[in-house]
């Protein structure tokens, strides 16, 4: 590679990085504002002029986290989102992998029907679903919310995973079969690692959708199984005035998801097909 060429690449990298920084800023600016407002007093937040520098206060966070309710809800939500995403990924892989790999009758009908399940607005299905949960005695439990979140995320997971599994080279399976691995072994030991960027993205999305879901969680939870979005409505009410509290609560609710994204980040890296060449 010539020196001149390398320089031009570097210059390009610089431009791309600069553009990316600007874009990123546009996306996170409102979030930053939310977080800084959470550290302000009411008078600082509503002065009508911008305070770039202010003395931060932890009062809002103390108040939001002081009561045990939001803390319970965080733990509940963590369970619901982690378990429902893991289950959704497992069940969806079971469907998506054969869909990606094999030609068979009714394949496209299955895929199409699954996707159309996501179209029905939850408002319409919530009442029959509630009745089902009640009949089997699960209403008010975390398990009922987990089940519905798996149900909600499955179509998305199937469709995304199908694409990611398709991108895994077929030769890998043959190599696995030669090594004497069974179907399950091939999937977990060879295919899944290769499809990891996609699987991780899908899992992250499931986690996020579950964490942020409101309607199912609201109707099915009780005092012991409130999730964060339901607990958040404590601060969101027609008679609520405390924006700084709301912003603090919003920040507290968002932080676990940000952490999850950071953790998944490691797995969102390039797939093996590239790694192998380098």
């Amino acid at each position, binding site marked *: 590679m010539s020196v001149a060429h390398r320089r031009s690449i570097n210059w390009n990298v610089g431009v791309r990085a600069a553009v990316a920084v600007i874009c990123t800023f546009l996306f996170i600016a409102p979030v930053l504002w939310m977080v800084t407002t959470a550290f302000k007093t009411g008078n600082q937040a509503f002065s*009508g002029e911008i305070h770039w520098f202010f003395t931060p206060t932890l009062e809002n966070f103390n108040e939001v986290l002081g009561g045990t309710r939001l803390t319970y809800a965080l733990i509940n939500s963590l369970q619901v989102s*982690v378990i429902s995403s893991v289950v959704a990924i497992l069940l969806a892989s079971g469907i998506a992998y054969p869909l990606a790999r094999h030609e068979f009758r009714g394949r496209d009908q299955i895929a199409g029907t699954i996707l159309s399940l996501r179209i029905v607005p939850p408002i319409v299905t919530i009442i029959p679903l509630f009745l089902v949960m009640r009949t089997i005695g699960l209403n008010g439990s975390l398990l009922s919310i987990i089940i519905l979140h798996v149900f909600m995320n499955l179509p998305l997971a199937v469709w995304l995973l199908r694409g990611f599994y398709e991108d895994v080279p077929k030769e890998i399976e043959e190599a696995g079969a030669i090594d004497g691995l069974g179907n399950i072994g091939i999937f977990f030991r060879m295919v899944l690692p290769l499809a990891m960027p996609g699987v991780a993205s899908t899992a992250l999305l499931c986690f996020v959708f579950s964490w942020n879901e409101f309607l199912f969680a609201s109707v099915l939870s009780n005092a012991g199984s409130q999730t964060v979005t339901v607990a958040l409505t404590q601060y969101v*009410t*027609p008679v609520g005035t405390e924006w700084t509290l709301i912003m603090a609560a919003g920040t507290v609710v968002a932080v676990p998801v940000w952490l999850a994204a950071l*953790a998944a980040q490691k797995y969102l890296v390039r797939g093996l097909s590239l790694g*192998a060449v380098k």
Partner: protein
Amino acid sequence: MKKETNMKVSQKRTAKLRIGALGVITAAAVALSGCAAGAPQNESGKKTLNAIFLPADWGKVVQEKLAPEYEKETGVKVNVELVGRDAIHEKMATLFAGQDSSYDIFNVDYNWIPEFGKGGHLVPLDNAIQDKEDFLPLSLKVATWDNKLLGIPQTVHPATLWYNSALYGDQSMKDQYQAETGRALAVPKTMDEWLTQVKFFNGKTFKGQKLSGWAAQAAKGFGNVHTWLSFAYSFGCNPFNADFTKSTLTTPECIGATERWSEMMKYMPAGANDFTYDSVTTAAQQGSIATAIQWSWGQTATDNPSASKTVGDWQMTTIPTGPTGISSAHLAEWVISVSKYSKNTEEATKFAVWLESKKNDVLQANNGGGDPVRASSYSDPTLTEQKIEGNGAARFRRLPTTLEAMKTAQPRPFFPGEESWETALSTELSAISLGQRGVQEGLSRANDAIDKNLSQ
């Protein structure tokens, strides 16, 4: 060759993956054990009630103070869950449809009493209260459907006219007003006086803040309807015929009220068409409005020194009178109801009654939980003699006005279809205040939409 490399890397990645999976499982396990320790548990042999309250101050005081106290006194544990207004409505409907017994007690906006009363989902409480005569009559009336008391009033908030007393007491403002209008600046008694003052204050500067004439809830959804109702009632407008079978929004009274309301909208701050309760409160706290129509109880927020620049300044009076001398405010009120599907209706009723004992009615008000529902509380020295710390203004200076307003206030149309009525009217009011439609056109469109809903 390449396959071999592939294999090696794949093995490495598999190892990594296992670590990752282990991490996930550990996290899940930690989460599970955390919950086991954290979730509220029912101790065996103890009676437990489940209640949903609004996450307003009156719900918080029940959750944080009264429920624990009740448990100490009686041994009955009450789990209080706080959820937003719409979520309560949704939850009640779903639970009732399934005749579900998970919750015993609900905090109910009184305008749902007719629909849930008609459905027969609430327990009549007539025999539960021994001293009905101490409750404000209107507060009981709007908790009653089909001659059955279906909720115990918890807090009332009639709309009142707020004015910034610092502004009204300012000598230079007084002089300017005298010079401009030839009259002395005094708290407005009639809608016309108020309009003159709103026009006068709008655009003036006071204590470094540019003023708007007034503010009130005006957002589409419910806010604009609630404010409009205080105008409508004071102008003698009645939105329905006597048995709620026909919308009567195009009467001269209703048109007059709407014209005035629409004219007044011009003197609200920027963004007024989005104004909700909190926008009005913020404007009041910052001192950027001269007057407001707002729930009585909101005064608490303007007296909070950490969020307000106008501590002790806001005073209130009843809604100015319309052309025929009527002053009638829109009433907001929350009641406590017991679910018919509860397995502990008796215990639940006892708790609901206890929450509104004389002592607790005062205690709730004292903790910021809205205005009391018992007449006796309005003369309770705990409230009337209390001063704002470091200011000297009476903390409950609004109570006489609230009591006065409660004599003439009127509820939202008290019939089962109120929520859809509000939705239909709200859309047209929004169109009128934005200048999309004339007053008459908007009202007659609302009339048609409402009649169509009624016929369904």
